[in-house]
């Protein structure tokens, strides 16, 4: 009787947890279906190439123009700029924490860096708008501080904890025996770090960087507040930009449901989703390949 009962409860748990595990799949599927079904109808108003390569975004003019190239370039430039800031700072702090910092320093620094991740993005946006943008404008005598550079700077700082803590984890996963073996054959600390530890942690570090990129591409509130919001292809790093996320956030509330504008915003969401999807696949492939090379693979 008790054996039977435990068998039943085992089954209940098994299927219960299976249901939870597959529910994410269901949500993902639902989101993809909605993105496609609400995004595709825009292509009755504009061709796919016209949508992606068009340089004019005037969704409410008569006739409307739905060219999102300025929005795509806005997103990509902000991402590139943010990466230039968060990769050196993120990797540098991960290396310092792992290699140099003592136990006590590490106990203080690591939680502090992670605290940076817990600040809500709207607070970053507010800080950028009220403090950083006016400061940059005065310092560099710009026409406006709300621009690509400011957005990249703030997003770069926001992505530091993601890159730093994932990269540090990756460094920690390198087996101790690697280091010991390197020292044993006479390598010094620098040689060990650059030729043994870093390559061994390479997959994890690449994953950290790519996930940082995903974070930057998907960030909405901050760019809405500090990027300036002009739908133009930037010619300088001090030009204002309008990334894809902030376009959706700013316009979705005022686009009539079912209009071409509404479908265009969903289509932007779809393209954004495809971009981050590709990033995640690349991260997966990179981490697998390195794992196999090191003989750590499953």
């Amino acid at each position, binding site marked *: 009787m008790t054996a039977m009962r435990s068998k039943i409860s085992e089954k209940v748990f098994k299927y219960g947890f299976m249901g939870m595990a597959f529910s994410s799949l269901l949500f993902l599927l639902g989101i993809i279906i909605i993105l496609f079904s609400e995004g595709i109808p825009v292509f009755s108003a504009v061709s796919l190439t016209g949508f992606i390569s068009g340089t004019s975004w005037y969704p409410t*003019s008569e006739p409307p123009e739905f060219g999102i190239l300025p929005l795509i370039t806005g997103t990509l430039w902000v991402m590139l700029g943010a990466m230039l800031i968060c990769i050196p700072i993120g990797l540098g702090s991960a290396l310092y924490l792992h290699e140099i910092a003592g136990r006590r320093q590490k106990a203080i620094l690591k939680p502090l860096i992670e605290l940076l991740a817990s600040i809500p993005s709207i607070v970053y946006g507010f800080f950028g708008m009220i403090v950083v943008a006016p400061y940059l404008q005065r310092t560099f005598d710009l026409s406006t501080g709300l621009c690509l550079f400011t957005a990249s700077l703030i997003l770069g700082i926001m992505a530091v904890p993601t890159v730093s803590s994932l990269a540090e984890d990756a460094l920690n996963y390198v087996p101790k025996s690697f280091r010991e073996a390197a020292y044993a054959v006479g390598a010094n600390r620098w040689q060990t770090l650059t030729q043994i530890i870093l390559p061994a942690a390479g997959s994890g570090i690449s994953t950290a960087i790519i996930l940082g990129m995903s974070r930057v591409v998907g960030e909405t509130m901050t760019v809405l507040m500090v990027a300036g919001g*002009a739908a133009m292809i930037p010619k300088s790093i001090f030009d204002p930009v309008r990334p894809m996320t902030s376009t959706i956030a700013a316009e979705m509330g005022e686009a009539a449901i079912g209009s071409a504008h509404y479908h265009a915003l969903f289509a932007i969401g779809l393209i954004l989703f495809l971009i981050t999807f590709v990033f995640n696949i690349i991260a997966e492939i990179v981490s697998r390949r390195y794992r196999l090379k090191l003989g750590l693979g499953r």
Partner: protein
Amino acid sequence: MKKILSITLLVLTVALAGFAGEKIRLSGSTTVLPIAQLTAEEFMNFNPDVTLSVQGGGSGVGIASLNDGACDIANASRSMKDSEIKNAVSRGIHPTAHVIAMDGIAIVVHPSNPIQNLTKDQIRKIYTGKITNWKQIGGADKKIVVLSRDTASGTYEAFAKLALNDEKVRKDALLNASNKAIETAVETTPGAIGYIGFGYITKRVKLITVDGITCSKVTILSKVYPYSRPLFMYTNGKPKGWVKKYIDFVLSKEGQELVETAGYVGLK
């Protein structure tokens, strides 16, 4: 038995009275929102039987939900487009416009800017990108930073119609989500020019005259100020019942005082 019956009846009446409270749904323009909120609160104070729920979303959203039957009153900072009227009629909705207040779109610049007046033509050329430096119109040698509302906002559409003859705003204009955001940006950017609703003019930005006319209550109401516009509430057909009472309240002396409290220009 009689006692039970009477108690049941009592409970039923109380329950029904609870349900009887009618609900009016308002939705639409963020420009009209402060007026709708103030008047709705006051109206409910006097009429506890009725509940008004007020939502923003923008003029386009309000009109679309009136057409869908999802709201009773659509607030709009622009008149309905032909396409929206056609859509309404095809769904058996007969939108009726009520002008409830006037608003002026004020042109503002940074306080340090020596410019006092701009012509309509100059403003159009600045916003469409034909004039790019303040020195071209007698100011300092400084790049003009053009600030505009998001192209989906009703204020943008009204401005495009009144000031730009429906030409497009230059691509490098900085787009902001609200009147307040424009005011803040103009205040902190020496080369900036922006447009904001009459109620959002502050001492921290410099108000520019247009064709020599100051944006003020008198010039807006008489429509002498070129960028003055009516604000609307749309109902389906002639308003009836509580909807009529509410619209009448907004148009009453008291309602119009609240319009002024909200920062707009009353009709009387």
